[in-house]
């Protein structure tokens, strides 16, 4: 209890009033069959900030992330209760259109997973199914700006019609980011987006995340403390399905309230 009030006070003290709430999870419990994976998680995601989710493997980071765009719906045995809102609207409300939700809350996965189609098609696919563009020149414009925002355009502009699977791992991951950006999402979820990349590609993606923050709200799961420290403004620490602690990244890394956070960031477990 103490921790929560502290976090609230902290929020009021350290944050400028322009910071608005984008998403909020309150009392989120997730079950895979009989097994409970998340216990009463309350977490706010602020607009135009990068929120990092950290914690040892199996603690439920991905599970929470996948609740935010209802990717868990695709797992038969998965049940979610509690409330998750996007701009104040409950995304688990039966009236919510999942297709629209996933367009507004995009996702980038751990392993780069471009479609086995051309680079152009990879980016144009989302806008096409949602009907965001109709003419060739509109599609061209979306593809170009999305690739540009993902910092990939210069590298691939001469081979837009070659398969996206032929790119290097880091380029593939930025292509996946471009693909997510192309449908103009408000939130981008990233599940360990750099864990399959080499250090140079990782640095590029991290740089990109920092730039994207200007226009998008980002939630990133990461295994690397350094990465969380480098790219995020706020950090949430999970342990065994519980949200242990949440706060500004500086504070979590320098002066955590919870012993478990302290142990985790100093490498005592995980």
């Amino acid at each position, binding site marked *: 209890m103490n921790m929560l009030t502290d976090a609230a006070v902290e929020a009021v003290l350290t944050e400028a009033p322009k910071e608005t709430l984008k998403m909020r999870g309150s009392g989120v419990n997730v079950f895979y069959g009989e097994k409970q994976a998340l216990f009463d998680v309350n977490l706010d995601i602020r607009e135009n900030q990068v929120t990092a989710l950290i914690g040892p493997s199996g603690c439920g980071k991905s599970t929470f992330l996948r609740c935010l765009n209802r990717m868990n719906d*695709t797992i038969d045995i998965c049940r979610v209760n509690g409330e998750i809102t996007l701009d104040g609207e409950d995304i688990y409300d039966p009236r919510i259109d*999942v297709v629209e939700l996933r*367009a507004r809350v*995009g996702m*980038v996965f751990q392993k780069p*997973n471009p*479609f086995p189609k051309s680079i152009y098609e990879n980016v144009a696919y989302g806008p096409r199914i949602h009907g965001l563009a109709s003419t060739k020149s509109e599609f061209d414009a979306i593809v170009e700006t999305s690739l540009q925002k993902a910092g990939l355009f210069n590298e691939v502009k001469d081979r837009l019609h070659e*398969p996206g699977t032929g790119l290097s791992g880091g380029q593939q991951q930025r292509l*996946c980011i471009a693909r997510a950006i192309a449908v103009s999402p408000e939130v981008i979820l990233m599940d360990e987006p750099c864990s399959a990349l080499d250090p140079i590609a990782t640095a590029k993606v991290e740089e990109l995340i920092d730039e994207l923050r200007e226009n998008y709200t980002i939630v990133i799961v990461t295994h690397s403390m350094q990465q969380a420290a480098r790219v995020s403004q706020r950090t949430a620490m999970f342990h065994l399905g519980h949200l242990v602690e949440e706060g500004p990244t500086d504070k979590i890394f320098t002066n955590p309230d919870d012993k478990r956070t302290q142990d985790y960031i100093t490498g005592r477990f995980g």
Partner: protein
Amino acid sequence: MSETTATAPKPFDWSSPEAMAKRKRRYAADRRLRLYGLVSILVAIGLLGILIASLVVTGYSAFVQTKIAVEFTADPENVPAEDPGAGNFRAVVSNAVQALFPEIENRRELRTASKILSNGATTIVRNHVIANPGLVGQTFTLEVPASDPFDQLNKGVIDRNLPEDRRRVSDAEIELFESLEARGLVSTPFNWGLFFNADSRFPELAGLAGAVVGSFYALLVCFLISFPVGIAAAIYLEEFAPKNRWTDLVEVNINNLAAVPSIVFGLLGLAVFIQVFGLPRSAPLVGGMVLSLMTLPTMIIVTRAALKSIPPSIREAALGIGASKHEVILHHVLPLALPGILTGTIIGLAQALGETAPLLLIGMNAFLTSPPGGIMDPATALPTQIFIWADSPERGFASRTSAAILVLLGFLIFMNAVAIYLRQRFERRW
């Protein structure tokens, strides 16, 4: 574990005679296992080799056909110019035979000599003249098939050195035939008729055209039914069906259906498609429907396996940008699974092509002298044609049976090769 004085084992002596003998036995066992495997493979290949070799030995002669070049005269007396089809071609042929053997004077001997030519010679000459009306009044040379006994004689199947009463051609006939050979009129070109003729009572004229067309129609019907139904069923089971006791039951039954003997499907086809629905007997439509019952379970199983093999990351990628379920399936999963599905389809169709029992039950073993014009016409299929020929007493049909089996095997090998090509060409591109 109450003993506290555990003695440390003596260091193992790797070079002691026992240890070396034991190792030797282990290596010997390795070699034996390898040998058993090798022997089994050799036995399998050997049996296959014997099968193919015996088919080739009996069947190769059916791929050539003894033909005799004969000069025919379509004199206007026998063949009216205004309607060549109505002509008396029997007379044309018999005149031509007379011209071949001017020394023959009595009618009996002439009739014997005519038997050298196939019974179908009249029809062949008639069709030739109808196709070329300008030939009326002309003399032209046409190669007509020799009748079966002389075909066999020429191919050496009938031994000229046997005593006369133990072979099907008399000394006099052999003499006539040898005179033709001496004049260079006998040739044995490739037997295109085997592929372009329909069935016939006379082996020298019988071909597989009817059976090939019948099999083609039946497979077409089978494909048109089992491909879409199989894919749709597999998509439902794999992508939509909830996992519960009912879908488990459906799944178990589909797997069982794949193991049902094909003759049962034939009985079902007879009872339901022909007797209840009143569809025509012997029709490729019914044949294809029966075959599709057999291929459907295979199709469903293969398609499900292909869908399952698409990595979940592709589905997640599509779902993650808001694709709806049908878009994920139709735009991403199905196209990627298609090579696998096609491979399975071709293998399923190849199985159906070789299926005999159900087709016999629905009457696709009729004797038909022209290829079917459509899926409702009576027809035979390749395996049932083999069945019919295998049942015929003439020597010529024995070699044609083997030849037909070789043709069927050729189709099967071709289909499987296409399947393998597809699998290799499109395997895993992500």
